[in-house]
């Protein structure tokens, strides 16, 4: 078994032996080619479909994810906006509920502050500021009474917009705060005043943190300069700078896919918070769609493998069935052709024999009559002088007819020689030299050099000399044609092993291109011009060598030359 496998591998992979495989069993190689082609053809659409499905599925997941993300960001944004608006509304309510005079009173402010602080967590302080920017009353942990805010930017802004929300800043006990302010117009007096409140960032943070996040994801708020307003999981703490890329969205929400230097794709969502200087940033590192769920992949893998296997099995079975049918029908055809060839050979024997018998009748009849006449003359008149000449002419007439008989009979002999398939012990070296003898003139005329490396004591082969010589004649003729003028033909004989001898005929001509090599043993395949050569020579030679139990191989390299190897068994099987 091991030997068989190693032989098979050697046959398939050793370059020279490939042609042995092709030559020996065309049907096996046809089967292999059909299966390979079929599998390839069926795998291509399979892979196309799989690839398309894969990417399509990936896209759907991604789109879905983005939608989901968008929705989440939207929600968070709205929540925070609501939070901001709520704080602003509270202040507005306070400014509409109480007068400037009331709230300017420190005690009143403190009481009011205490009441509101109870309801709205995170309030740190209240402050009333007059139209010139001076803090009239203040309640809170800082010492800010009488502070002059007139030069500050926020003051200008609140005058223009009527409201203000600040960035985060470090406050009391290093706790980050942010401030909101409302301007209250007093149309009767033509003036205004401002209610300012400081709020703990904690509360803001609470809203941000409600978002349901995966472990790798981060959501936080930054200001227009990129300073963190709420703490980020991976990018720093409050009031630290967010160093990664920020795109300020023109519309309210912008989701961007960024390729970072790491392998993961980062998705950043930016959302502006209305009525505030803030930007909500969502950084998603875990993109579940980037890794198609393993289930899909496993299933896909098994389905693919299963289909390929199924397809392969099916193709092999089909190819086997079809090629076997072809082989059978080829064999049947060969058989039928063989039979009809044989039948016609036999019929021709009958015709030949009849033809010869018929033809020879006349000269025989002539001889008979002339001899008879001679007899008659002798019996009737023994008178010589008159008849001498007559006799001599009769004798020469008989001689002529005898020659005719000979010629006619000779045809029969030629025919019988052709019919006899001898099985004699042939010295291949002699056989080759005879063939070369035929072609000597041609070889000399074309100035081709002939090298003979005939192994001494080459074992004799029991085979049909005529047919073997026909093969050599064909191959050497081809070599001569390939060389045209000048060149070298080398004929080597060797004992391949104890069962086979080999004859190698090599020429250093133009060689045969690889595409043609596969076909040269096919009938009617010829690279010669139309009218020159039928293309049958090599296919007939192939058939002869096969029938004699041997193999014929060819090796060729462009511009280097071609070598034909004919290997014959010392004894054909069955002897």
């Amino acid at each position, binding site marked *: 078994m091991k030997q068989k496998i190693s032989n098979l591998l050697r046959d398939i992979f050793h370059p020279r032996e490939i042609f042995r495989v092709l030559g020996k069993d065309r049907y096996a190689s046809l089967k292999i080619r059909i299966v390979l082609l079929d599998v390839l053809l069926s795998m291509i659409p399979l892979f196309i479909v799989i690839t398309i499905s894969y990417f399509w599925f990936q896209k759907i997941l991604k789109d879905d994810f983005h939608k989901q993300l968008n929705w989440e960001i939207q929600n968070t944004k709205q929540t925070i906006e609501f939070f901001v608006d709520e704080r602003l509304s509270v202040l507005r309510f306070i400014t509409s509920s109480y007068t400037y005079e009331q709230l300017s009173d420190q005690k009143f402010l403190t009481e009011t502050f205490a009441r509101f602080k109870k309801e709205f967590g995170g309030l740190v302080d209240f402050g009333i500021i007059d139209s010139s920017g001076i803090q009239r009353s203040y309640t809170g942990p800082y010492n800010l009474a009488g502070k002059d805010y007139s030069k500050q930017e926020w003051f200008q802004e609140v005058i223009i917009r009527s409201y203000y929300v600040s960035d985060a800043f470090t406050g009391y006990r290093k706790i980050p705060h942010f401030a909101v302010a409302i301007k209250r117009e007093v149309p009767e007096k033509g003036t205004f005043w401002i209610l300012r409140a400081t709020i703990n960032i904690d509360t803001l943070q609470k809203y941000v943190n409600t978002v349901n996040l995966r472990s790798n994801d981060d959501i936080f708020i930054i200001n227009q300069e990129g300073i963190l307003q709420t703490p980020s999981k991976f990018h720093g703490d409050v009031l630290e700078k967010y160093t990664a890329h920020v795109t300020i969205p023109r519309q309210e929400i912008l989701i961007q896919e960024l390729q970072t230097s790491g392998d993961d794709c980062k998705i950043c969502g930016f959302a502006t918070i209305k009525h505030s200087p803030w930007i909500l940033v969502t950084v998603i590192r875990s993109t579940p769609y980037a890794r198609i769920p393993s289930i899909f992949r496993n299933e896909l893998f098994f389905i693919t493998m299963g289909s390929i296997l199924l397809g392969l099995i099916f193709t092999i079975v089909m190819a086997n069935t079809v090629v076997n049918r072809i082989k059978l029908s080829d064999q049947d055809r060969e*058989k039928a052709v063989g039979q009809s060839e044989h039948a016609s050979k036999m019929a021709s024997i009958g015709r*030949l024999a*009849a033809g*010869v018998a018929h033809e020879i009748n006349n000269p*025989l009849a002539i001889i008979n009559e002339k001899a008879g006449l001679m007899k008659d003359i002798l019996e009737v008149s023994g008178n010589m002088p008159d008849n001498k000449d007559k006799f001599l002419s009769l*004798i020469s007439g008989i001689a002529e007819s*005898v020659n005719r008989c000979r010629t006619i009979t000779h045809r029969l002999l030629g*025919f019988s020689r052709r*019919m*006899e398939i001898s099985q004699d012990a042939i010295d291949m070296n002699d056989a080759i030299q005879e063939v070369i003898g035929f072609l000597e003139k041609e070889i000399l005329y074309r100035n081709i050099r002939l090298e003979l490396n005939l192994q001494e004591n080459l074992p004799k082969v029991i085979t049909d000399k005529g047919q073997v010589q026909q093969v050599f004649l064909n191959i050497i003729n081809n070599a001569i044609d390939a060389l045209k003028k000048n060149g070298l033909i080398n004929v080597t004989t060797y004992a391949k092993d104890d069962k086979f001898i080999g004859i190698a005929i090599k020429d250093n001509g133009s060689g045969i291109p690889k595409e043609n090599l596969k076909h040269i043993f096919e009938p009617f395949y010829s690279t010669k011009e139309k009218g020159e050569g039928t293309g049958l020579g090599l296919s007939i030679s192939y058939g002869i060598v096969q029938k004699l139990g041997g193999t014929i191989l060819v090796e060729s390299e462009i511009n280097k030359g071609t070598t034909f190897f004919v290997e014959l068994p010392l004894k054909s099987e069955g002897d």
Partner: protein
Amino acid sequence: MDSQYENELRTLQMRFIGKIIAGFTHEIKNYIAIINESNGLIGDMMKLGKSPENELPVYLDIIHSIEDYIEKTTGHFRYLNRFAHRMDAPLSSFHINESLEELIALINRFANQKRISFKQGYDNDMPPVYSNPSLLQLIIFTFVEKNIMELEQDSTITMQTAVADKSVLITIIPNGKRVEGSSAPIPTELLDIIIKELGGNISQDRGKNTVIMLPLTSSSMSQAT
């Protein structure tokens, strides 16, 4: 019959026919040569001045010999013709004795080389047989050839024919010493297959006689010729 046997059979047939024709041709060449010589002899005698008046019997003798050999030649060609035409159809009606006679005549030359002669013991009341005459001749030839090769000089071979129940029997009886250690190989397996397809049988008995049985009518025979 499977294709390997068919190929073997065809080869065997070709060889058989080749041998027959070769033998025939050599025989004819022989006859013609004798005619030629006789003819030349008359010419020589006349030129040498041996006139017919004095040598009449000699002249007549020679001419008689020429006529004789013409007849032999013509007869031999008739045998060849018959032999060749037996291959025209796979099955036909023929007479065993006739087909044996022509076969023996055509192979006489081989036998003559060892001065082996043929005796015939033909049953004269043989009915015609419907079978394959050329294959029968092939089979018989194979055994006869074997005997010729194995027998010593001056032996005889007797060909016997007889009718049996719905069949005919052809017996080849060699008579003579066998050459020491000689054994000419014959394709027994193939011959068995052939005769069986014709519905017959080949058997050998102790005395090295070969008996070929052929039914009067062979039913089938695939394209074996």
